[in-house]
């Protein structure tokens, strides 16, 4: 079951706090984004500078990834959202409300501790949990699609919990909204 919370002032503070600690993580992730739809099976190592806009421009993808936070993390074998994850998603929903020029693809991922098929199904659950939460926060379902990568696209490569906890994630990947051109 999804665990939902109403936004309190305290939570808003924790959102800002989360954004601060997520910033370095997101920047680190920028060198290795799990980008979708680049036409290759490989990860885009160095996206052209400026392709995601100016990170100081609050309407840019770069700002979303770095300052709002493009990803949430999950407990082992779970797809329910942690309070921290919900806080990030509230910010994502707010940002999407303010930036209708973007749609989002939500990628669900699992760590390597599991069989391939099960992890695909688990990644799909995680992506769906994020999608449902964003919709509950007012994002139009038509702007959101999901994909699972199972354990196929880790961002961290060690075989320890400190890596696994970064790989059990759902990433909100922004794209130009359908009909608005790119």
């Amino acid at each position, binding site marked *: 079951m999804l665990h939902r919370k109403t936004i309190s002032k305290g939570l808003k503070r924790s959102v800002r706090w989360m954004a601060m600690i997520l910033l370095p993580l997101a920047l680190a992730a920028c060198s290795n984004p799990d980008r979708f739809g680049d036409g290759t099976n490989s990860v885009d190592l160095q996206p052209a500078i400026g392709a995601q806009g100016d990170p100081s421009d609050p309407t840019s993808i770069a700002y979303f990834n770095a300052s709002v936070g493009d990803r949430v993390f999950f407990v082992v074998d779970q797809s329910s959202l942690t309070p921290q994850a919900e806080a990030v998603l509230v910010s994502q929903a707010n940002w999407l409300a303010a930036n209708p020029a973007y749609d989002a693809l939500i990628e669900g991922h699992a760590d390597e501790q599991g*069989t391939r098929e099960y992890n695909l*199904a688990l990644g799909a659950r995680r992506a769906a949990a994020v999608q449902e939460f964003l919709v509950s926060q007012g994002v139009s379902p038509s702007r959101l699609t999901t994909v699972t990568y199972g354990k196929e696209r880790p961002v961290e490569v060690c075989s320890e919990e400190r890596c696994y906890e970064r790989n059990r994630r759902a990433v909100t990947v922004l794209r130009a909204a359908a009909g608005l051109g790119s």
Partner: protein
Amino acid sequence: MDLQRLSRLFLPALLAVALFQSGGVTPAQAQNGPLRIEITEGVIEPLPIAVPVFVAETPQSADLARRLSDLVAADLEGTGLFRAIPRDAYISTPASFDAPVSYADWKAINAQALVLGSVRVGSGGRMTVKFRLFDVFSETALGEGLQLGGRESAWRRIGHKLADQVYSRITGEGGYFDSRVVFVSEEGPKNNRRKRLAIMDYDGAGAAYLTDSSALVLAPRFAPDGSRILYTSYETGLPQVYLMDLDTLRRRALSDQPGTMSFAPRFSPDGSKVVYSLTQGGNTDLYSAPVRGGSPTRLTSAPSIETAPSFSPDGSQIVFESDRSGTQQLYVMPANGGEARRISFGQGRYGTPVWSPRGDLVAFTKQNRGRFHIGVMRLDGSEERLLTASFLDEGPSWAPNGRVIMFTRESSGAAGGAALYSVDISGRNLKRVPTPAGASDPAWSPLLK
């Protein structure tokens, strides 16, 4: 991609097989008791066997004769059931294919079985290979003589067929050497893995690529006749099940349901249906669809994960994994859906069940206390045996005779990679299968025709 090689591999009517009965050779008789390896009892001591270099009946066939006999010996030794006696220990070597067998010379070095062969290469690269198998201690032929014909380029297949003859005549089981494996070839670091489909002989020879690595591909599965494969590809961006013809490499999506994700496909034993997982709204259930196209039938409707389906050899039932109990476990249900009964009850989690081609066992992946195992159990869940243990073993695939299992073993850490391994169902003879690069998700073909 080596398409030229591939098309040669798939030319039909590769082999003309003829039985011949030569004078004085009689089928094996139970004089001193038949020569027989009982695989089920678990072989500790391999059977000593002599495979002299085949007789070259034409000067240009000498090299081929050596390669063929070496391949037969390697196939047999690779099972762990046989030990090829080193040729420098032989007391005599056969002067000709038809010469009387000097049984005393083979008894003296304790060869239990003797494989004799001859090779002739004719015009146009056609070769003719003759074969006989003898039970040394009862001084009888084991089965009839055999003559195989084919183009010289097909020598490996002929060698594998001869080894299959030896294996099945001595063990009483079907062989598995003349078979192929489709798998996912993997290159690049763990966080930038490039995957493409590849095919090779069961022993790793002749690997050729079936796709490039532009789209992520997963878990190919053979059709029962070996001519086509199912697999999962991300070429549209979402994981979807594809069907590929191995002769032409043409492929098509199995079904076109926008916005859905499908994976974990497997053929029905008659090749007419595909059972697979389909995910909608985050929920994964099992479906069945006609291969020729048409609307899918939903087999399960539960909020839990239902995946990794595999048909029974008679097509009447499906074994699959589900977390409906809270953790991944194995279930069996009728092939059209309906009530499922749980069959796994041990410690830990069970996934990727595959029904044995003999129908007697299910192979699975088990996770317990941070380790992964390949195991087998009966269909009622009894007699569970774990065959392997490692950081990450998964995805068993049965040899055509149901006696050997190939699977993926992934090593841990930043430099970790995937490789193919095989093990027999008694847990012996664990070994790595050679592949050109990293490899995962093996699927063993049926025995080739």
